[in-house]
């Protein structure tokens, strides 16, 4: 099968790649572009480990085709921190011990960032429902939710 040429932007950088028509954006990111921060937990849209933004919409990259990135702006976990400066959300995840194994963390950080853009002052319940698509098997979510709410408060204070 002929590969397709895709022009896109990832975390603000211009990126071109060739991909098979059936390849998912997740596969392209991980296998072709070596952006392995985005994780695969299910490849069926059920776990959120592969969360990225496409044109500012939060999506499961396992449910998006690589070719759909053409002309779009993609945001991944690799673009959340500012060079050597962690994002407040990342800092709060560390302070609250909101990760154990950490495989869910990139997806949760990306989703939380989007949550707080849309709703800078979520209630616990709003945070729980917004993040319901991001499975974590290790933590029971307690510390994740605390980290998210604390990050929200800190970001509101800074804004």
């Amino acid at each position, binding site marked *: 099968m002929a590969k397709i040429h895709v022009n896109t932007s990832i975390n603000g950088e211009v990126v071109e790649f060739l991909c098979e028509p059936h390849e998912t954006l997740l596969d392209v990111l991980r296998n072709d572009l070596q952006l392995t921060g985005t994780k695969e937990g299910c490849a*069926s849209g059920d776990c959120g480990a592969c969360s990225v933004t496409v044109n500012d919409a939060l999506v499961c990259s396992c449910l998006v085709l690589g070719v759909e990135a053409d002309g779009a702006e993609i945001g991944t976990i690799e673009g959340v921190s500012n060079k050597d400066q962690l994002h407040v959300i990342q800092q709060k995840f560390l302070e*609250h011990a909101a990760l*154990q194994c950490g495989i869910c963390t990139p997806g949760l950080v990306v989703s939380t960032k989007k949550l707080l853009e849309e709703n800078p002052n979520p209630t616990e319940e709003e945070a729980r429902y917004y993040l319901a698509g991001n499975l974590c098997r290790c933590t029971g979510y307690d510390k994740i939710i605390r980290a998210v709410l604390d990050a929200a408060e800190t970001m509101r204070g800074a804004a």
Partner: protein
Amino acid sequence: MSEAKQYKYIGTRSIRPDGYDKVTGRANYGADMSLPGMIWGKILRSPHAHAKIKSIDTTKAEALAGVLAVASYADFPSVADEVVASGEGSSNLLDLANNILAKDKVLYHGHAILAIGARTAAIAEQALGLVEIEYEVLKPVLDVNDAMAADAPVLHENMFTQGLAETPTKASNIAARQEFKMGDIEVGFAEADIIVERDFYTPTVHQGYIEPHACTASYDQDGQSMVWCSTQGHFDVRTSTAKLLNLNLNRLKVIASEIGGGFGGKTTVYLEPVALILSRKSGRPVKMIMDRDDVFKASGPGSATRNWVKIGAKKDGTITAMQALLHYEAGAFKGSPVMMGCMTAFTPYAVPNMYVEGYDVVVNKPKVAAYRAPGAPQAEYAAEMVVNEIADKLGIDPIDLRLKNAAKEGTQTIYGPKLKAVGLVECLEAAKNSPHYQAALKENQGRGVAAGFWFNVGGQSSVTLNMNPDGTGTIVEGSPDIGGSRASMQLMAAEELGMPAENLKPIIGDTENVAFSAGTGGSRTTFATGMAVIEAAQDVVRQLKERSAAVWNLTADQIEYQEGETFSGDNRMTVAEICAGAERTGGQITGRGNINARGAGPSFAVHLCDVEVDRDTGKVDVLRYTAVQDAGKAIHPSYVEGQLQGGAAQGIGWALNEEYVYSADGHMENAGFLDYRIPLASDLPMIDAIIVEVPNPFHPFGVRGVGESGIIPPLAATAYAVSQAIGLPITDLPCSPPNVLKVIQDNA
């Protein structure tokens, strides 16, 4: 003894040393390793639950452009009928090989048959579709009751029940029977004023780690091989893989990647030997990743069980006798954790008369693997449900009833030793005094209490602590860090050396740069590997004193060490000064800790759960949850709380929703996270974690493992809360909406 001790680093909530990489996506997990020239391996899995393989034809698959190798059972050098230890259990090598690639019979839906290595994953997948296999389909057995029936189809023609007075001559699906007893239950039941007995069912459940099994392997022509994989024990991966492929241990390097959850499920091998075979045959590095469907169908879940429990008590709540009959599914090959079930079922109780009988039964489901306190949740679920029912019937508070009968220091266990210092009473009191226990309930709400016991294990751990010329150090340990254990190692070394934690960097060495260490399982890492870290730190201190003595022309016993400095009289040197001068005093300093840790302290847990049940739909909402557990000494309280909360969440999932659903012909029908529903953020409340600290007398800081006990109480705490809310007994898990609705409707 550690009670009175004030610590400087231990007990603080430091930022974990591996955290930065994990929140930025830089940490490399099982699937994140690629090598130049690498190809992809995919596995062909059985569409049948039970069938003979009559023929396999790979001609067309091998002819496909881009296909570079095929692996099957025949590629294993002759495998010995021997047992190898791995994780919390052990497996027979023949069974292990047969599970990794079926020999002549497939024993469950998803059983691996052969593997294909190809230039891309898509080509490998396409080639699998070209393999032609002829099966003779057999009737499956999917439940212990069916498997134990006299006329049941037999999985293994050469399996004869072990543990009977006389080994039978007829093969059956009952792999083994065992019993544990103390006192005389007949006498005990005769003393009882009340006796309650019930049958319970718990379904097959999965650990549900978010990261699927994955590895990258490279077999070199000079016979030096490398496996990079996500595992709880890379030394165990090396042992099993080397045995299966007939390699010397020094020819196989296993590197543990970061691990995305395991909970016991990553203590054995599935892909690693296959990837190495494909690599040998293709001459290329090979990457293999299970997809989620594979993980559910063909990795090792936790046993489904059918258990019967009978308990007798006096009017005042004194329990006089406890009896259980346990049946655990092992999956397709023998070796369920039923023995652990027998040993743990009644251990929270100091009762003189106990009898437990257990059966290990094979069925046409994937071979079970360890799952967090393997075997304990199922048996303790049944026991705790009956204890609660007795408390209710006697009109005694369920915590008071437990306090009256609680196991404590000196209590005789059914499995042999007497308990040393343990914290069950303290946990029960903390639960009783918690605000949660005082809170009132409303209509359609219920509260459940349950206790849990897990032994914890010790075992071998090796650590080297390499001091750098600037006085900082690198802690090289061999236990994969699954939940923040590097942070604990760092704190323990900092405490012992009196040095800032950030000056000590813990890393997980591969099988070549640290000596053998048992895997991360049995809640052993902070306990046992922690002891090795302490020993290595003490070894460093010893050498720091020797070096200082050499400089000051004194003997080592004249030197004191404190807070990162040696001193004697007016002489003083910092660790940095000693290390900087090490080239003049005999070269650099390395501390060693190689131990086989004994004295793992059991950890008891007590949980409280409040639920509300919608009587029209059967849906259960968890309203409030409290997990109390004895940590001995919490080295890093946040990660201890995390273990309590995570265990509780998994147990709640087990109680409320999780189960393998099979069709009558043995197809697993819910092999995905949509239909096998683990708890979501929106399903749970905050989980209050209360850490109790009754020091383990056998650990320098008093540590007890905390990883496992927390998954035990939620099953009964949650299910009993449901039964309280609806006013009807619950026996079968999960308490999913249809199941709860059925209980309500059947009793309407």
